[in-house]
């Protein structure tokens, strides 16, 4: 082993160091976790031509090619140009160079459940939204973990991402179409928050306050008495993370926001990160950035220029509950407190 390799440079080219000297793994982004199946042939070709013949399904829904020799990296970068062009530029409208591999680390892929193109429970098209979000967050050296789930089941584990985006529906009750069978009451009780009950005249009463917007009621109604408002709404969870230090579940930042609001908010992440890190990108979880700035500052910067839709609600405060691997992990000298904003 006598190679002189700039690991950091390769990392920023989306090549991850292997424990096998001289080998690297490529992580190919799949924004929204769905692409044309034709790309699988390409991935297979890369794995079998330059990789070790295996393929790994990335933990964030990337297509991973392990075991690529250092000297083959330029060839692979050249070969994936078409993939980048089609998936990033054409499909997601991302503005980036594609002739030398990924322009930055791509492993923090925008993950999404299958969404309403297939799932009977999903409330929106997760792929469409992922493709709109991709150009807002990629390529950038301020990395963000985002996961999109079609419904509050949160199969995408948005609760453990910097941003978890959960599709919810505002339900409309067509009183005159209700046959009073109680299917919705049972479904809500069994699968959601149990906000439905019978009225004395065998129609349905709803505690709108605690409705999570899952749409189970519409899914089970035999008469079409429950329908979803055509406008798509989202719950935005923030600050969730895994990790060695203080994993925690994300908490609701915004509830019942429309897509326009969501896109504007996510668009503010770059500015917020840059301010927190004083324009010195560090590869760390978004939740730590929120901790450094404090929730109030985060809220202020993320909502800058945002006109909230009338249904939207915003968390006043967030009470985090970390897993404390060490007791009182947060009790540290003032000098060691994380700092946000300008350093000088």
């Amino acid at each position: 082993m006598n190679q002189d390799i700039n690991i950091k440079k390769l990392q920023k080219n989306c090549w991850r160091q292997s424990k096998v000297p001289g080998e690297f793994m490529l992580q190919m982004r799949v924004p929204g976790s769905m692409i044309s199946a034709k790309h699988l042939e390409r991935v297979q070709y890369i794995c079998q031509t330059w990789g070790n013949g295996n393929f790994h399904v990335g933990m964030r829904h990337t297509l991973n090619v392990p075991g690529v020799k250092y000297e083959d990296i330029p060839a692979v970068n050249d070969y994936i140009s078409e993939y980048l062009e089609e998936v990033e530029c054409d499909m997601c409208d991302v503005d980036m160079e594609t002739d030398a591999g990924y322009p930055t680390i791509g492993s923090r892929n925008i993950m999404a459940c299958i969404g309403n193109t297939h799932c009977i429970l999903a409330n929106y098209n997760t792929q469409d939204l992922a493709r709109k979000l991709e150009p807002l967050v990629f390529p950038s050296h301020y990395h963000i973990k985002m996961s999109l789930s079609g419904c509050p089941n949160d199969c995408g584990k948005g609760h453990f991402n910097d941003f978890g985006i959960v599709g919810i529906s505002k339900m409309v009750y067509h009183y005159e179409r209700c046959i009073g069978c109680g299917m919705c009451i049972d479904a809500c009780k069994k699968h959601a928050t149990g906000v439905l009950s019978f009225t004395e005249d065998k129609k349905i009463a709803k505690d709108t306050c605690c409705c999570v917007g899952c749409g189970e009621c519409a899914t089970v109604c035999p008469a079409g008495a429950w329908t979803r408002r055509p406008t798509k709404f989202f719950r935005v969870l923030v600050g969730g993370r895994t990790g060695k230090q203080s994993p925690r579940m994300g908490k609701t930042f915004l509830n019942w926001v429309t897509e326009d609001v969501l896109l504007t908010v996510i668009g503010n992440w770059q500015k917020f990160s840059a301010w927190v890190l004083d324009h010195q990108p560090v590869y760390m979880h978004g939740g730590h950035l929120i901790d450094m700035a404090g929730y109030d500052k985060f809220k202020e910067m993320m909502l800058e220029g945002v006109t909230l839709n009338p249904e939207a609600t915003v968390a006043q405060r967030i009470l985090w509950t970390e897993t404390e691997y060490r007791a009182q992990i947060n009790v540290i000298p003032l000098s060691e407190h994380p700092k946000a904003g300008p350093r000088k």
Partner: protein
Amino acid sequence: MGYRLSYPEADELFRKLSAEYEIYAPKLFEKQGRYSDTDIVRYDRVKRAEEIVWDRKSDFSAKEVVSPITQTIFYFTEDEYRESRTGAKKLLIFLRPCDINAFEHQDKIYLENGGIADVFYQRVRDRVRFVLMECTEGWDTCFCVSMGANRTNDYSAAVRRDENGLLFSVPDPELAPHFAGNREEPFEVRFIEQNDFTVEIPEIPNKDVLNKLKKHPMWQEFNDRCISCGSCTVACSTCTCFTTVDKIYDENAHAGERRRVAASCQVAGFDCMAGGHEFRTTAADRMRYRVLHKVHDYKARFGDFHMCVGCGRCSARCPKFISFPATINKMAAAIKEIVAAERQ
């Protein structure tokens, strides 16, 4: 001889007719389907000819126009019950041959059964005029031909949709003058003669076989498959069952209204008496009850025809893909088995 109307001409006709008629037709309700971003087609008032949905089967049947899911029949006070009011205009309903034949069964129950005519049904039904929507293709869930419900003569007008607009024939002299002056064009209404699916309705020779069939293990499969939601009966063009429910306006229950609300024999509690005793306690029991009504019990009572008209809405709406014709075929096999065992 028929009349050729372009869509603008048809709109003008609808406008003129509206002085005397309310026009009902299958109409699209966007994004109001069971699942997110799916549509639903159901009967509603239409003002323009283009609103009529031709290219898919209405999810719910035309029966809702005459016997709505929720209908106030009386208003009551301490002293009296007063009949609810009804409209005065005639109702022009656009519907297919199976749907017109279904009304024959609705009429049997509401107007003839027990020698008692139901006032609330009759007061609407008397004002109904049918406009037959020519149906020559059907859909994959249709089996009207097997049920002999693919043809009808019972209509005031018939209409075909083609690339040039609408072509009407108007046998009803009451309606004909409204069409006079439009371009004449020969039009002979055609009927579908072959569905994708054919069923043979088995004969049940006697009560003994009937009661053995009720206990046959074939029904057990529905305990696993059917969720007793009642989607089939709400969509069914021939189901008539309802429950009366009182809506009370004041604390002392002195004033309120009495309603009829569509009921489903598939929903648990349909046969539950005041004391709590229930006869059909499983999904299998309830499925058997419905299926036998449609293809045996009704005919045993009224003679000429089976109740089912093969519109296939039950299969189309079933969230668990239980096919009604497939179930009939299973029943036919069970009957054969029972009869063969008896002969031995």
